[in-house]
């Protein structure tokens, strides 16, 4: 199974994501932002970092990268896509996921080990978890505050589309402690914390992140 990882100018965690994919048993394929081709991959990860310097708004310019012209319709057609941190911001700017990410309410960049609760274990990227499970993964962001209007938040909650919620102190002011969400179909998932940094013992607080990548491989085998 081939999982593409898009590198935008300013992406930082693309190689960590590729490594996580390999450790999970997949084949990582490097995708370039200016490439108008997905090279036949079975799933895509939009990694963390600061695409195009995050100038204008985080993820706003990346949304219009040539590779996104192919990725957006593919995601709408069911291709599994995981957006991590900056990738989550790109997914929101692309309208593949609702809402937006704004600057942390405390105005500081935050880097910490974050506890999360898995709220939805039926997405392409969360099948190897169980709903209600607590996990611990790295979190690092400056613009991680998830916001949306009340109607959107109510819809997300009502449809079970809040995929992850922060446990303990809310690290960035995200509405309703939302750390990650999914689209209606469950193939597109975005989250602020970084599972790709938590896939090997000895590096990071846990290996809880590996299940994101094994989940999508299992979902592709079952599909």
């Amino acid at each position, binding site marked *: 199974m081939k999982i593409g990882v898009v590198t935008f100018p300013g992406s930082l965690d693309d190689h960590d994501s590729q490594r996580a994919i390999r450790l999970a048993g997949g084949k990582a394929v490097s995708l370039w932002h200016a490439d108008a081709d997905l090279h036949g991959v079975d799933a895509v990860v939009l990694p963390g970092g600061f695409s195009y310097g995050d100038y*204008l*708004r985080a993820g*706003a*310019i990346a949304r*219009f990268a040539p590779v996104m012209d192919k990725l957006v319709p593919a995601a709408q057609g069911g291709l599994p896509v995981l957006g991590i941190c900056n990738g989550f911001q790109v997914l*929101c*700017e692309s309208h593949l996921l*609702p*809402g*937006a990410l*704004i*600057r*942390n*309410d*405390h*105005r500081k960049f935050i880097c910490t080990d974050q506890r999360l609760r898995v709220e939805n274990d039926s997405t392409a990227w969360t099948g190897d978890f169980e709903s209600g499970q607590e996990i611990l993964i790295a979190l690092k962001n400056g613009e991680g*505050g998830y*916001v*949306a*209007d009340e109607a959107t938040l109510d819809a997300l909650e009502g449809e079970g589309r809040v995929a992850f919620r922060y446990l303990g102190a809310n690290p960035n*002011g995200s509405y309703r402690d939302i750390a990650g969400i999914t689209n209606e179909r469950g193939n597109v998932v975005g989250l602020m914390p970084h599972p790709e940094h938590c896939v090997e013992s000895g590096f990071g607080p846990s290996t809880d992140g590996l299940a994101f990548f094994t989940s999508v491989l299992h979902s592709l085998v079952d599909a």
Partner: protein
Amino acid sequence: MGHVVIDVMLKPEILDPQGQAVAGALPRLGFGDFTDVRQGKRFVLAVDGPVTDTVLAQAREAADTLLSNPVIEDVVSVHALESDA
């Protein structure tokens, strides 16, 4: 050469951490009369020749697609720079 000025502000209901930081600093500098600050963005787009209706229409479209995110921001105004006239 003409210019189009586009002003974008965070929607009123969205927390503005940058504005809050400025609001916190003002009284420390002795400006005690201001109860709130909202910080926005101004874009100035240059064109060869005058700002026509077509140019303005393009600028509005750019404002609605790239320059603002309608989820969190309002395009407050799109207008030709008056000092060009």
